[in-house]
Structures are given as structure tokens and as C-alpha cells.
């Protein structure tokens, strides 16, 4: 009864001028909530979900683009500079959204289960970490023994160039990995990619000898960032300083900049994915996913198409790797663990394998759950623990609550539960993938009959 009622209500709200009113009020509500209570998680959630009401409700596409651009390019950066923690959450969402969208090409479109996707992310990150730091001059020193005051190998602005290098290098790595393993199907492929992911991580961990390429488990730091002229900071502060309430520092502005870069990568991925999806290549990928034997019998070159999917997916991870290295100025093998690969994969599955909006929603949900809801809940519990509060009736003092019951520690359990529930109730994901409807002459002909 209730779901039907909501469905009818949503349909009614999706007509006429209602969508505009909803989107505007949602956005304005979110913005003002965040503005008035800059520390509230709920306010932030209201603001972020307004992006999804923008996606869901049918409006003029120009309105959508303008409203989306204002939200993403103006509102979010301002809100982010006001509370730097929000900016971190948003940056992480956009990084994971980009990774999940890249993995979506491999898993969602071509149906190749890749359990070692972060390996390509690591390739990009270490590429810039090596060339964008002093590591080149540390080659012959064991970790921790390098002299200070070493020069940097390349200027920070080489970052832009290395985004393109990373795309090429990661794509080549994808092809190299793909060549021997893509004859394998399903489970076998998953196991080999899992192994490959671990190999890259172990390499990063151990390539500090005989020549010190990666500085081992200690990781590489400092890694350079592209330069930011003081004029840009002054311009930003002149424009938004009044709203933000304090002067934004260069460090804050760097965070905004990397968020915008991540956004740019996402836009490029969406553009490329959609165009490929709607062509010979995209159809061949889907055909391979649906039935390999039938696809090859129809003339689809299996290995070539799988390699293409691997290369395209890997290249985006490579670009994001460079971005990560520069934004953090520090990377270590820890960032590229198997759990990361699984995390990105679960975003794809949760959101809807093969569906672009779904995958973004998946990335946002998992990241927010991770960084805000679980940690917020942990914080709340620990406050209770320190207080004298008592649960009535059963007479339980919060103080006696075991520290083992820290929700943040149950992250994996929660993800596991979510994935199991999704598989049972909504196996196609939160926003399932749809095939494009084509305008066909024969459709109109039958409609007239």
C-alpha cells in the first residue's frame, strides 16, 4: 500500500512546474541549513541529496545543467571552504565516483570482474610520486637515510603533463595485464586480477631496494602540486570572502582545486562512457558481457574488445592516481590495498552495475556512510560513554558500554550486510542500468494502428 502511494505521489510531483519548485526548495533548504549549522551532518546530507533530486525530477535540460553547475562549482566549494571537513568528504566522493565509473566500464559494461582495480590507481599515483618528488635523487639511499635539501626533479606544473602520461601508462599496464589473462573467463579472471592488484601493492612495498624507487612502506613525500598564483587566491577571497566569513588559505584553495579536477575527470569519464556505450564498441562490450560465445560468433573480436575495456577503465584510474598523489602530497602502499578494490567494486554493485547515475550514487552513499554517518555515530556513542547517562528501564549505564562496540569498527560488517540485502532485494542496484530507447519508424507505424 505505502509504496504504491509514494509512487503515485512521485509521479504527480514529476509534472508541470512541480519539479522546479522541489529542486529549488531542496537546494535552497540544503544550502541554508549547511550555512546556518556548518557542523551538522544532516544539513550536509540535505545539500548533497539535492543533486539527486536534480537528477530524478524531469525538468528542462538547460535548467538541469545550469542548476547542477551552480551547485557543483559555486555552492559546494563555498560550503567546503567554510567547513573544510565537508570539502574532504566531497573530494573523497568525487575521487571514488571517478574510480567507480572507471571500474564500471570494465565490470558493468564488459562484464569482466576485476578485483585488482586499484593497481592502476597505484600506477598513476606512483608515477607522479616518483617524478613529482625528490625520489629520483634518493634512488641510491635506503629509506630514511636520504640527505635533506634535495632538489625536486620536475617543476610542480608538470602535474598537468603527467595526468596524460598516467592515462597512457595505466592503459598500457591494463593491456599488459590483459594479454595473458583475458582468455580466462569469470572466476578465473577475478582471481588473476586480484593477484595482480596484490603484486602491484607488494612491489610498491618492496621496491626500496636495490634501487629506492618507492621508498617502501614509508611512502613518498613530499609530492609537488601544480602552482597556484596568489592572484587566484585573492580573486577567490574578494569574490566569496564575505559569504565564507574568513579568508581562505592557499591550502583550502588547493582542496577546492583538486575537487574541481576530480569533477573534470568525472565529466570526461561520463562523456567517454556514454559515447562509447552508444557505438559499435559499447554494443560489443555489452554483447561480450551477455554471451561471449554468441558475441564471437557474430564477429566481435573478443580479446581486442576486452583489452579495450581494460585499457579504458585503467586509464581513468591512472589519471585519478596522479590527482591523489598531488592532493595528498604523500602516498604509501597502504592506500592501494585489496580492501580498496573491494570498496570500489561494492560502490559499483550497490549503485547499479552499468548505470552511470547509479555508480555515482553508490560512491556517494558508501563514502558518506564511511566518513560521516558511521564516524558521527561513533562520536555520539563515545560522548554518551563519557557522560553519566543511563538507559532507563534496563538500568544500563552508557559508561559501561564496551569500546569494542565502536560503529566505525563495523564498517566492513555493515558493507557486507548492505551488499547481501542488495543482492536479495535489488540485485540490479539502486539505479539499474537502462538501455537507450531508439526512435524507430516501425514503432510509430504500430502506434497508429
Amino acid at each position, binding site marked *: 500500500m505505502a509504496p504504491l502511494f509514494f509512487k503515485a505521489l512521485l509521479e504527480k510531483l514529476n509534472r508541470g512546474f512541480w519539479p522546479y519548485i522541489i529542486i529549488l526548495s531542496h537546494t535552497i533548504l540544503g544550502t541554508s541549513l549547511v550555512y546556518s549549522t556548518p557542523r551538522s551532518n544532516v544539513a550536509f546530507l540535505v545539500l548533497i541529496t539535492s543533486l539527486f533530486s536534480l537528477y530524478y525530477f524531469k525538468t528542462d535540460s538547460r535548467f538541469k545543467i545550469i542548476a547542477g553547475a551552480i551547485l557543483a562549482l559555486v555552492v559546494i566549494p563555498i560550503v567546503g571552504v567554510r567547513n573544510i571537513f565537508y570539502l574532504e568528504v566531497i573530494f573523497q566522493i568525487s575521487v571514488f565516483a571517478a574510480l567507480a565509473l572507471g571500474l564500471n566500464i570494465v565490470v558493468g559494461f564488459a562484464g569482466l570482474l576485476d578485483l585488482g582495480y586499484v593497481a592502476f590507481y597505484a600506477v598513476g599515483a606512483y608515477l607522479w610520486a616518483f617524478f613529482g618528488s625528490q625520489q629520483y635523487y634518493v634512488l641510491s639511499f635506503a629509506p630514511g637515510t636520504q640527505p635533506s635539501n634535495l632538489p625536486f626533479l620536475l617543476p610542480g606544473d608538470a602535474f598537468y603533463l603527467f595526468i596524460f602520461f598516467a592515462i597512457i601508462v595505466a592503459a598500457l599496464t591494463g593491456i599488459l595485464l590483459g594479454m595473458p589473462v583475458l582468455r580466462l573467463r569469470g572466476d578465473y579472471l577475478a582471481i588473476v586480477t586480484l593477484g595482480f592488484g596484490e603484486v602491484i601493492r607488494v612491489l610498491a612495498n618492496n621496491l626500496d631496494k636495490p634501487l629506492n624507487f618507492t621508498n617502501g612502506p614509508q611512502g613518498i613525500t613530499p609530492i609537488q602540486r601544480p602552482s597556484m598564483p596568489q592572484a587566484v587566491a585573492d580573486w577567490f577571497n574578494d569574490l566569496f570572502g564575505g559569504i565564507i566569513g574568513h579568508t581562505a588559505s592557499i591550502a583550502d584553495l588547493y582542496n577546492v582545486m583538486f575537487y574541481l579536477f576530480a569533477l573534470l575527470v568525472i565529466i570526461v569519464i561520463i562523456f*567517454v562512457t556514454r*559515447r*562509447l556505450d552508444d*557505438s*559499435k*564498441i559499447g*554494443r*560489443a562490450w*555489452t*554483447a561480450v558481457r*551477455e*554471451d561471449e*560465445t*554468441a*558475441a*564471437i*560468433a*557474430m*564477429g*566481435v*573480436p*573478443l580479446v581486442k574488445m576486452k583489452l579495450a575495456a581494460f585499457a579504458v577503465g585503467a586509464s581513468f584510474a591512472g589519471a585519478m592516481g596522479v590527482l591523489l598523489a598531488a592532493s595528498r602530497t604523500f602516498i604509501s602502499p597502504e592506500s592501494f590495498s585489496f580492501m580498496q578494490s573491494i570498496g570500489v567494486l561494492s560502490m559499483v554493485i550497490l549503485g547499479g552495475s552499468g548505470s552511470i547515475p547509479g555508480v555515482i550514487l553508490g560512491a556517494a552513499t558508501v563514502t558518506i556512510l564511511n566518513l560521516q554517518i558511521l564516524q558521527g555515530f561513533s562520536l555520539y556513542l563515545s560522548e554518551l560513554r563519557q557522560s553519566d547517562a543511563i538507559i532507563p528501564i534496563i538500568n544500563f549505564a552508557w559508561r559501561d558500554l564496551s569500546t569494542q562496540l565502536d560503529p566505525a569498527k563495523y564498517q566492513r560488517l555493515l558493507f557486507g550486510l548492505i551488499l547481501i540485502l542488495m543482492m536479495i532485494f535489488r540485485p540490479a542496484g539502486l539505479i539499474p542500468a537502462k*538501455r537507450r*530507447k*531508439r526512435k*524507430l*519508424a*516501425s*514503432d510509430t*507505424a*504500430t502506434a497508429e494502428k
Partner: protein
Amino acid sequence: MALLETIDVVKTFGGLTAVNKVNIKLEQGRIISIIGPNGAGKTTFFNTLTGIYSPDGGEVNFNGRSLLKLRPDQIAARGLSRTFQNIRLFGDMSVIENILVGMHVHLKQSPISTLLRLKSFKQEERSAEKKAEELMNYVGLKGVGNEMAKNLPYGAQRRLEIARALAADPLLLLLDEPAAGMNPQETEDVTRLFRSIRDDKGITILLIEHDMRVVMNISEYIFVMDYGEKIAEGVPAEIRSNSRVIEAYLGRGAVAGQHEEKLQ
């Protein structure tokens, strides 16, 4: 010159010889059937022709060139298209996309023109879509272009598989039990369709079929297989009265008895 010729094709699985020294010769523009009891090796023979299995011995020559050592997709590109015994459509793709996948080898769009949506890309897509629609209408699937393939009724799925195979503009169409599971009316319709494919498009058809009404009605020539070997070949009238064929189908005792009705 024969369109397709196989010389002593052998395919073994461990100790089992699924296809044993089969020689066939197909003339262009004919409708030819392969019949035989279950497990006779007919589908395995199809799979060795299309490269899904590579033969363990023998020669396969198609249109003047050897098909050995070619991958299935290369064989498809040479003009050998097929359908499957247990329908193998791309279930989560629409009807028209299934047919467009069939055209894969003929589409020339490069990644660059795809990404930039160049004029050449748009034109090619538009004409491919138009051609796919014509094929849909041709096999009798008007107006379902945007349906998911998996949602079509059984008979329509069979038709879609044929349309997808035709999309590659084949010289030779291999149909693996195309009338299986169809009612008499549907069977009659697809039989008519096969004949028109040959008559209108000049495509040679080789089919595996168990329904003797279809086989005897449509075939101009028949090969019979049993236990991996070709045991007979000839025009339908010859096959009907061939004692080895009757034996293979009905057992040794039946040869002397009334076999005529059973095979009709």
C-alpha cells in the same frame, strides 16, 4: 566451385570421437540439411565449422579459403553466420541492438569518430539502424525494436536470432534446430522465411533439424550423421528410403517393418 567443403574433419573430446572424418560439399544458393539422431555430432560439426572448436584433423574450405587457424570472429567476418540450438541472444540488450551487434564486422567507425560524433559516424549509425529495422520487419518482428530480447516470446526470439545472423550479410547461414519447440503454424512460417532468405538474398542455408516435415519440405540435399560419421547423403527421396538412415533412427529391427510413416 563449392561454397563450403570439408575434407575428413575430425573432432575428438578425450576418447570420444564426436566428428569422424566428415566430408561435405555445399553448392552456392542451396538449402541443405544435416539430420541424425541425438548425439550424432551435428552441433559439434557446426562448432568446428564456425571456429568455436578447432578441428583435430581435416580441412575446412570456405569460399576458396581455408578456415583452419582462424578465430570465430574472423570466420564470421568471412561470411559464415549462425544461430544456436539453445537460443543465445543478448538478453539485456534491445531487439535492435542485438541486430546491430550482428553488423559489427561491417561497421567502420573508429574510436575517434565515435568520441567526436563525426558526421561519418552519425551517418553510419543511422543507416545501420535503418537496415536493422528492415531486417526486423523482414523476419516478422515489426514494432518491437526497443523491447529487451529476453522479454520476447520464444518464437520471436528464434526469429531475432535469424535476423541477427542475417545482419552480418553472410554467404552461408548455419541454422541449428531453428524450428525446435515451435508449433505447426510457427514451423510453417519459419520454413517460408528460410525459403525467402535463399530466394531474395541468395544466401546459402545449412540447417540442422529434427522436424522431418521441415527437412523433407525444404531441403534440396540432405546429409545424415550418426555416431560422428556421415552415413548417407542425397536428395530427400533417396534419404527417405535409405536403409542405413532408417536403421540409425529406428534401430536394426525396424528396417524390415513399416518405416515410411515414421519418417514422413
